[in-house]
C-alpha cells in the first residue's frame, strides 16, 4: 500500500474536561496534527473523516457539528460509524482511489458529557432479544471472560497482570488518564461487576481527541521527514447475535488479521513486529486479542503476561502506551490512541517509553460490547 501517516495531534486524556467543549478540544488536536504534518487545512486537505456514534455524543446526526473545528467547512467530510481505525482504513482507501492526496482522520471521546453511560450502552443491545433481562451490558464481557478462562485455563491472576502492566506503562505516558502502580491482588479483590470480571478489569472512561493526517506516497515523501507507512489493513465484523457467538475467541480479529497480514506480507508476526498496541477494553481482551493476532500460541497469552513477556522491557512489548486500561477508554478514539503510540515509537519520539530500534508495529481495535467488530493495521517506518 502507498499511504503514510504524516501528522498526529491530540489533547491529553482526562477523566473530566468540563471547562472546554468537544469542539474546542477537537480544534486543539487538529491544529497540532496539521502543524505536525506541515499542511494548511483550508488548502491542502482533500477529505475529512470522523469516527463517531450519535448516542456517545448526545446528538442525532453528529457530523453536523464536525466541520467547523477541523477546518473542513465546504470540504468532503463524513462520519464513519465505527472506531478510529476503521475511519483510518476508509481514509486510506480514499487516497488509494487517486481522488485525494491528503486526508484527515478524527476520533475522540467526550465521555464526560454522558451522565448515563450504562443506560446508553444498554441501548446498544438488541431491543427484542437482549434488553428485557435488565442486566448491565458488561454481562457480555463476564460471559466471554468465563468462557475464555474455561477454554484456555487462563487464570484471573493472569488477566490481572495485564491491568498491572498497562497501568504501570501509563506512568510514563504523559497523555494517559489512569496511570497507577497496582498489584494483582488489588485487581482481583476490587468490586465484582459480572463474575469473573471485576471493576479493575474494566478500562475507565476518559475524554480525549485525536487527529491523524494521511498522505499519498508522493505527498508523504514531499512533506514528511518521518512518514509512517500503512503496510496492511484489515477490518471485519462477526455476528451481532450474542446467541450465536464463539465466546472463547475473538473471531472478528482472526478475519481482520488475515487480510492485514496478507497485504503486508507478514508471515511470522511474532518475529516481524517489534511491538503491538492491541485493544484492552477488558483485561482478558488483551490476551484474547494477542492470541488471535498469532503473537503467541492459542491459550498461552495469560502465562506469558504473568511471566513479563509483554512488559515494556519484555521480549514482546504490548500496550506500552498504557492501552485503554492505563491511558483511558476513549470509546471510538482508543483505536487511534493505539495508532498514535505506534507513530511515536516508530518515529523514535516516545521518550522514556521508547522501544529501541522499533521498525514495524501492529495496531488492533475492537469496538467493545455488544459488538464483534474490529480492525488490524500494520505500520512501519520503512517503505
Amino acid at each position, binding site marked *: 500500500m502507498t499511504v503514510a501517516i504524516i501528522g498526529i495531534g491530540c489533547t491529553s486524556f482526562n477523566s473530566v474536561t468540563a471547562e472546554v467543549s468537544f469542539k474546542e478540544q477537537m480544534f486543539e488536536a487538529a491544529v497540532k496534527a496539521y502543524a505536525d504534518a506541515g499542511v494548511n487545512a483550508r488548502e491542502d486537505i482533500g477529505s475529512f473523516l470522523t469516527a463517531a*456514534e*450519535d*448516542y456517545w455524543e*448526545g*446528538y*442525532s*446526526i453528529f*457530523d*453536523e*457539528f*464536525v*466541520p*467547523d473545528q477541523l477546518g*473542513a*467547512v*465546504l*470540504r*468532503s*467530510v*463524513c*462520519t*464513519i*460509524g*465505527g472506531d478510529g481505525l*476503521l475511519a483510518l*482504513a*476508509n481514509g*486510506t*482507501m*480514499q*487516497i*488509494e*482511489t*487517486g*481522488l485525494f492526496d491528503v486526508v484527515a482522520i478524527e476520533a475522540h471521546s467526550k465521555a464526560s458529557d454522558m451522565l448515563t453511560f450504562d443506560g*446508553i*450502552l444498554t*441501548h*446498544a443491545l*438488541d*431491543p*427484542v432479544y437482549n434488553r428485557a433481562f435488565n442486566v448491565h451490558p458488561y454481562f457480555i464481557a463476564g460471559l466471554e471472560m468465563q468462557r475464555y478462562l474455561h477454554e484456555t485455563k487462563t487464570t484471573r491472576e493472569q488477566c490481572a497482570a495485564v491491568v498491572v502492566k498497562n497501568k504501570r506503562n501509563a506512568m510514563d505516558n504523559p497523555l494517559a488518564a489512569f496511570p497507577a502502580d497496582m498489584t494483582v491482588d488489588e485487581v482481583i479483590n476490587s468490586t465484582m461487576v459480572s463474575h469473573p470480571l471485576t471493576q479493575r478489569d474494566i478500562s475507565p472512561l476518559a475524554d480525549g481527541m485525536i487527529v491523524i493526517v494521511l498522505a499519498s506516497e508522493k505527498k508523504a515523501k514531499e512533506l514528511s521527514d518521518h512518514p509512517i507507512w500503512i503496510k496492511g*489493513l*484489515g*477490518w*471485519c*465484523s*462477526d*455476528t*451481532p*447475535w450474542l446467541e450465536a457467538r464463539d465466546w472463547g475467541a475473538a*473471531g472478528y480479529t482472526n*478475519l*481482520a488479521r488475515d*487480510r492485514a497480514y496478507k497485504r503486508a506480507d507478514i508471515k511470522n508476526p511474532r518475529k516481524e513486529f517489534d511491538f503491538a498496541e492491541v485493544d484492552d477494553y477488558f483485561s482478558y481482551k488483551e490476551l484474547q486479542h494477542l492470541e488471535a493476532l498469532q503473537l503467541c500460541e492459542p491459550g498461552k497469552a495469560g502465562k506469558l503476561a504473568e511471566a513479563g513477556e509483554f512488559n515494556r522491557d519484555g521480549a514482546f512489548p504490548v500496550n506500552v502506551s498504557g492501552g485503554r486500561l492505563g491511558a483511558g477508554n476513549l470509546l471510538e478514539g482508543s483505536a487511534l490512541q493505539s495508532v498514535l503510540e505506534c507513530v511515536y515509537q516508530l518515529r523514535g519520539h516516545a521518550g522514556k517509553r521508547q522501544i529501541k530500534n522499533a521498525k514495524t508495529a501492529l495496531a488492533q481495535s475492537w*469496538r467493545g460490547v*455488544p*459488538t464483534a*467488530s474490529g480492525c488490524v493495521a500494520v505500520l512501519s517506518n520503512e517503505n
Partner: protein
Amino acid sequence: MNIRKRVAVIGAGITLYRRRLKESGKELSFYAANMALESAGMSRNEIDSVVMGTAPDAFDGIHMKSENLLDGAGATQKPYTHVYVGGGTGVFAPIGGWWHIASGMHDTCLVVCEEKMSPCFPHPQTAFRSIWDPIISRPLNPNLVWIFALEMHRYMKVHGIPKEHIAQVAVKNKGNALDHPSAQLAAKITVDDVLNSEIMVYPVNRLDISPPSDGAAALILASEDVARKYTDAPVWLDGVGWSLDSAYWTNRDLYFPQYVAKAAKMAYKMAKINDPPQEVSFAEPYDPFTYKELHHMEGLLLAEKGQAPKLTVEGVTARDGDLPICPSGGLLGVGNPIAAAGLMKCCEAFWQLRDEAGKRQVPKAETGVCQAWGDLMQVGTVCVFKRDS
C-alpha cells in the same frame, strides 16, 4: 486526477416503502440486499465488502444500530463499514462503496441503506429534537420543519418565487410515483390541493412534505473487470462528490445550497461533464420538501439560480420533458425512509440506464445524476451514473 479503478453498478433491490412495515430493520435490510444479489446473479460469498448507510440511531432506537443491522445486510464475517452524513447518507453510501472498489482494495461491495422510523414514539419527529445544538437551539424547543420553512422562505423571498410554482413539484412527483411499485404516497393531485392542504410551518403545507417511512434499498458495486463477468449492461458510477458546510447555519445565506454546488462540481469533474444541463439526461435531486427539489436543481447546476421553478411550471422537468427530474416519484411520492430514500434514487438511475424502469422509463437516458442532502441544511452528496457504451 486518475482514478485507480472504474466502478460499476450491477444489481439493485428495494422493499416497499410504508409509514410502518412489520419487518424489523434487519429483515428489511435482508430483503433489499437479497433482491440486489439476485438481480446481479450473485451469492453472498461473492461479496468482498459491505457498506451500510443508515441515518440517526434514534429512529430504530438502537445505539450503534449499524452493528445490530449487519447480519441482515449480509455483512457477517465481512469487512463492514457504516458511513453516515445525516439525510445525505442514501447517496453517500454508494460513494463509500465506490472508494472500497476504486481504491483496488475490494472487487465487489454490497451497499445497503435501511431506515425504520416507525419505532420512534410519539412521532419520528421526536428523534429530530436531538439534531439541534443543545446549548443554543434546543432550549427553544424547535421542530425540524422550522429550518426548512426558514430556508424555503429565504429562497422564495430572494427570487420572488410564488408558492404555486413550488407546489407543482408535489403534483409532478406524486404523479410520477403512481408508476413506482414501492410508493407510499403516489397520487394524482393538483396545485390547489397542495396550496389548500393544512399549513404545517408556514410556508410549508402538508403536501409539501415527504412522509416518515420504513424501507430499505441496496446496490451491488463491482470493479470493471469483475462487473463484466456478471453482466453485459453495467451502469458506471463515474462521478462522486460530497461536501459539508458549517454547522452555524444562521451565519450562512440559505437562498442557495453552496454545499450541493461544491459536491456537484466535484462529481461532474470526475465524470468529465462540462455542461450539466446539456449532458445530464435526468436527475434525482433530493426532494423531502417541494422547494428542495428546485433548490437542489440549482445546486446541481441544472438550472440558473431562481430558475428551477419556472422550468417545472413549463413542464421541462416532467418525465417526458427535456430534463426529467425525479422520474421515480422522489421522496414526495415514493416515501422517505431517510437513507433508503437516497439510495432509492440511485436504484432508479440504475434501472433507467438499463432501460428497466418500465412505465417510468425516460427516453434516451444516457447520464443520470442523484443527489441527497441533510444535516442542518449542510451536506450535499452527488453520484453521476452513466450507461455502458
